[in-house]
């Protein structure tokens, strides 16, 4: 299996902020083409490309844009969600740091397509260097008249604001991010209305993940038809896989969808487990994706194939756990994190996440009971079935899958106490 550098094609070729070099190597072509088209035609290209969101939910990007573009309310807003907070996920940082102009270009095209005159990039607060870089980029773009009025001689005007996040996991959720931008408490909201209908300040808003946006100039430059040749039917393009966990070589690898299996990715790029032991389990889509046991790793790297294997491609953050590690410990690590991150909006998530964290802790201390396992299942089920946003719907999945795949790890913890 080989990398297929489409989004990361510029990586390392020149100094990231060098606009001239970016342009010389084919950059801005997508934007130039887009500006010669009607906004609806740009939206149509994205729809035809079959691009889906790379932030975790895999929602069709074209539909999102179309919905916002059709709204009559103005002004509209375009937001680049760069608050990369999912566990085991660090691919957006690569794009933001090494290929910022491509992301920028995608933002301008997106804003043009939906009719926004103000765009935001909401950057993860911990990415300090990235924030500095984007502030410089913003100034350069202004100077190069890629922002402001009549961009590249068109009638299109746009301003971009670089906003620093405040270190909340949930602010990566689109409505929580919008609330944060409105200087409110970062909290998810009830849908519908969706952000594309009533988003930032109640106006039509598109929130797209960094990687999603990085695909946009490629689609516009190549044309949707050509872009669709990447990947497989219904799941075109590449994905940036963040590989981490108990492996020798962690990193971000851009892989054409469907060009190999999860096992190949781990073996060939990860170079084996740190302890040299067999793999016990893998989370293929970030910290809230269900665990896959070793015998499920032959699924292809596509949204559908991973789903059929019992998990989700999510953020494509592949976290590897080797043998010898208890599933209870894996789950405890995850719950230690998520247990503090509910925005508090929905009762089952707000309370459930804390109760599950407590139960897992109890089990880890050898103080759990069989009843505790049943409680984990019930709370998890209620959260998944009833929560508003991705967090509540997903955080129980690793726990539920661990209980199913590795019941002995949990039962052992209980046995200890009675022995």
């Amino acid at each position: 299996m080989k990398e297929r550098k489409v989004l990361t094609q510029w990586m390392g070729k020149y100094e990231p902020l060098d606009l001239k070099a970016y342009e010389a190597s084919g950059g801005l072509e997508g934007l130039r083409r887009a500006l010669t088209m009607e906004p609806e035609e740009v939206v149509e290209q994205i729809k035809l490309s079959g691009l889906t969101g790379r932030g975790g939910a895999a929602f069709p990007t074209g539909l999102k844009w179309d919905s916002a573009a059709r709204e009559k309310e103005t002004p509209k807003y375009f937001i680049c969600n760069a608050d990369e907070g999912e566990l085991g996920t660090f691919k957006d940082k690569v794009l933001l740091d090494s290929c910022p102009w491509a992301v920028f270009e995608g933002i301008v095209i997106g804003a043009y397509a939906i009719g926004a005159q103000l765009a935001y990039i909401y950057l993860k607060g911990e990415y300090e260097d990235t924030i500095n870089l984007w502030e410089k980029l913003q100034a350069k773009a202004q100077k190069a008249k890629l922002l402001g009025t009549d961009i590249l001689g068109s009638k299109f005007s746009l301003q971009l604001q670089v906003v620093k996040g405040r270190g909340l996991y949930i602010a990566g959720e689109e409505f929580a991010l919008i609330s944060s931008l409105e200087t409110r408490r970062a909290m998810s909201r009830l849908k519908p209305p969706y952000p594309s209908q009533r988003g930032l300040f109640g106006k039509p808003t598109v929130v797209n993940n960094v990687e999603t946006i990085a695909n946009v100039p490629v689609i516009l430059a190549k044309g949707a038809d050509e872009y669709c040749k990447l990947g497989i039917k219904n799941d075109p393009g590449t994905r940036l896989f963040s590989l981490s966990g108990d492996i020798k070589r962690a990193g971000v690898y851009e892989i054409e969808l469907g060009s190999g299996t999860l096992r190949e990715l781990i073996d060939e790029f990860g170079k084996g487990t740190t302890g040299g032991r067999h793999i016990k389990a893998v989370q293929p889509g970030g910290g809230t994706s269900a665990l896959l046991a070793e015998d499920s790793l032959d699924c292809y790297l596509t949204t559908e194939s991973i789903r059929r294997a019992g998990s989700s491609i999510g953020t494509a953050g592949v976290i590897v756990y080797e043998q010898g590690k208890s599933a209870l410990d894996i789950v405890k690590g995850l719950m230690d994190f998520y247990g503090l991150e509910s925005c508090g909006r929905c009762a089952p998530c707000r309370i459930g996440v804390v109760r599950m964290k407590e139960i897992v802790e109890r089990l880890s201390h050898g103080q759990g009971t069989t009843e505790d396992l049943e409680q984990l299942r019930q709370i998890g089920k209620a959260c998944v079935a009833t929560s508003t946003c991705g967090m509540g719907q997903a955080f129980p999945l690793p726990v539920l899958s661990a209980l199913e795949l590795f019941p002995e790890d949990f039962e052992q913890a209980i046995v200890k106490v009675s022995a």
Partner: protein
Amino acid sequence: MTIDGKKVKVPKGTTILEAAKAVAIDIPHLCYDPRVGPIGTCRLCVVQVQGQAGLTISCNTEAADGMNVTTENEEIASIRKTILELILSEHRVACTSCDIDGACKLQDYAYRYQADEERYGRALRKPVRPNYTSNTEAIVYDADKCILCGLCVKYCEEVQMAEALTFAGRCDDMEISTAFGKDLYESSCVLCGGCIAVCPAGAMIDRAAIGKGREKDLIKTRTVCGYCGVGCQLNLHVDSKINRIVKVTSEPGCIPNNGNLCVKGKFAMDFIAHENRLTSPLIKRNGKFEPSTWSEAIEFVADRLNEIKNKHGPDSIAGVSSAKCTNEDNYIFQKFMRAAIGTNNVDHCARLCHASTVAGLAKAFGSGAMTNSIDELKNAGCIFVIGSNTTEAHPVIGLVIKEAVVKHGARLIVADPRSIDLVRFAELHMPQKPGTDVALINAMMNVILMENLHNHKFIKEKCEDFEVMAQIVKDFTPEQAELITTVPADVIRRAARIYAAAASSNIIYSMGITQHTTGTDNVLSLANLAMLTGNVGKESSGVNPLRGQNNVQGACDLGALPDVYPGYQSVEDSAIRKEFEAAWGKELPPNKGLTVVEMVHAIEKGSIKALYMMGENPALSHPNLNRAREAFAKVDFLVSQDIFLTESGQYADVVFPSHCFAEKDGTFTNTERRVQRLRKAVDAPTGTKNDWGIICEISTAMDYPMAYDSAERIFDEIASLTPIYGGISFDRIEAVGLQWPCPDKNHPGTRYLHKDRFARGKGKFHAVEFKPPAEVPSDEYPFVLSTGRQLYQFHTGTMTRKSSTINQVSPTGYVEIHPEDAEKLEIAEGDNVEVATRRGRVTTLAKVTDNIQRGWLFMPFHFCEGPANMLTIDALDPIAKIPEYKVCAVKIKKI
């Protein structure tokens, strides 16, 4: 659609939850309230919709054609149970000592699903730590019981729009708080108590009600609020063992307030059981009050009144009726004055608030009341608020205006000298100089005429005397108006265009318009403006005076006025007089009587020898108090009938103790002409009698016998003599009040007036020219003073100032002054200042605020310490005889 096998038909936009409610299927929910948009935090309302994957949240999903919904199955029940058990793991279950035991949604659902309160660990009492309510008298927040559904936050944001409450902390540490944890009473909270009303779990509670009774211990009586003219429906919860009102609530869906209340209706009922209530008649002997028996006091008053009547004639006696009393009380009072005493010298405090409305709108339209209903405001295209601080004086109508703007896109124009709260929601604010309203309105009409925005058809078909009015305004430009009003000409132009352009424009006004020597002119100008654009006689557009007192509309309707019998029937019309003479069996005086301020002046002249005051406190509410109080001291015989010994009562020779609104049966008529049932909730203190009963006894003792066995009997007599009330009876208004005119038993009442034609036939334009106020600033008295009300107090504070909640937020009076003026005079916030006019001087505290313009001052009039009416002028409007409370020339200095 189908819900649990039942066919349901609902209007578009109805949610599944609401559709289920319509067929009596209760989908569990803890965070739904019809007054706010869906919150969807409790997640209990999930249902299964056929053909949809997973579960659907029913409070945020619209019902659709052909939808098939299952509200409960094994899976859903199990999930609901788990969620409830999770909620119970953070709600400290203390039902045994909880005030809302038996009225708690969480308790109900926990029981229904047999949720185990200890399944996920028992929520224990957290260490006591102060929160944002610890120092607030009205409300207690118990974080241990809070289930964080967010309804209180949403209500505060969407209905009250105070935005005082918010979430703080995350996960385990999450709770409700104010911004920066400020004490609630010092935050933007207006203490409406809405958070208590919507709380499903007893986390927000009335501090005063703690431990005073649960649902099963209390008896609930539905009645009408006794404060302002909105006429909110209240439920008074009474502990009958001790005859005390424990708390006040209201129900969503009720008319006219939809379950919303203000701080006064919710928290200012302490006066009812106050220790200072009068409990025995008092007779002043040698300058001191002595308790007397009822028979002695009645006889004494009857004898004195007879004596004066015999010696000086019936017109030497005057009576002040009361806008706080019921329709029945007012009817009996004026009947007593006219038939038993034989004079038309009867008036009441409407003279001091809306006499100019009654006069002006009668002249222009033929009827002096709100043309429209409160709920019509919601659909108005433009709302023009002039001279009404609605959110403070009529808070619940303020909510409707805010809702109209925020939720329904109404365009709001505010004309007020001060930056009142509504300005936050307004597209335009015109801070006109006090007393220059006619100039402002004439200039608006000038713009409308010049730009040809007027409604030619309406003017031609429905109005008369247009030319006379047009002649006056056609040369009066916004530039000229700017010189007089200080409002920039282009702002006046924009306001005129917005008002004229809307499909329905609604004028809201109150005392800022009426309490001037040009009060009638101001009202006529507004009537001109409305007729010019055809904005009368249709839904959501009209001229709407907001009435101040709970029953000021009713007191006027029932003829507590010197020129009309009940139903605005002239005392000078002999045919009408004959009808009343026949009904009352007595010859009646044919001449108009005196108005309240004229009564004071007549006492000075010696022509009035006796004054009977029922439920009024003119010694604090009258203008130019020094002069008024001298008159009360001078009058030969003064009777006060009240629930407290008021400032006015102090001057009386005899005081009768009476009943308050919560102790009475009868009717009040609210500002939208709605006759509503008042119901007795508590027994009045022993030794007191009801108002109409006292008057009947005196009347009987004066050989004009009156006796009724109930308020209902009186009302039936009212209906028989008052055509606009003719079709109303107690049984028809049991559930919801009726709006007059309601001429017969089958008439549904009238939502808005002048529908096909004006009450007087044609709408009459009046040529009104600007006239300056009676007193303008001079070198010695350089400031303009306006007086008025504030949210927390009512009138002379007799009732509100007995509430600990109110006293905490509104302890005493003040004068508002602009920061630049304050700086020049070296006055700082909270300084003691002396404010003086040619008539009197008072000491009060300075409140430095840029809500007021330079050169203008404002004082609330509720406070007996530093009473604003020591300063006001008793110059009268020549037609309505209303005094000019809103403008006088004053000086101010630091002391």
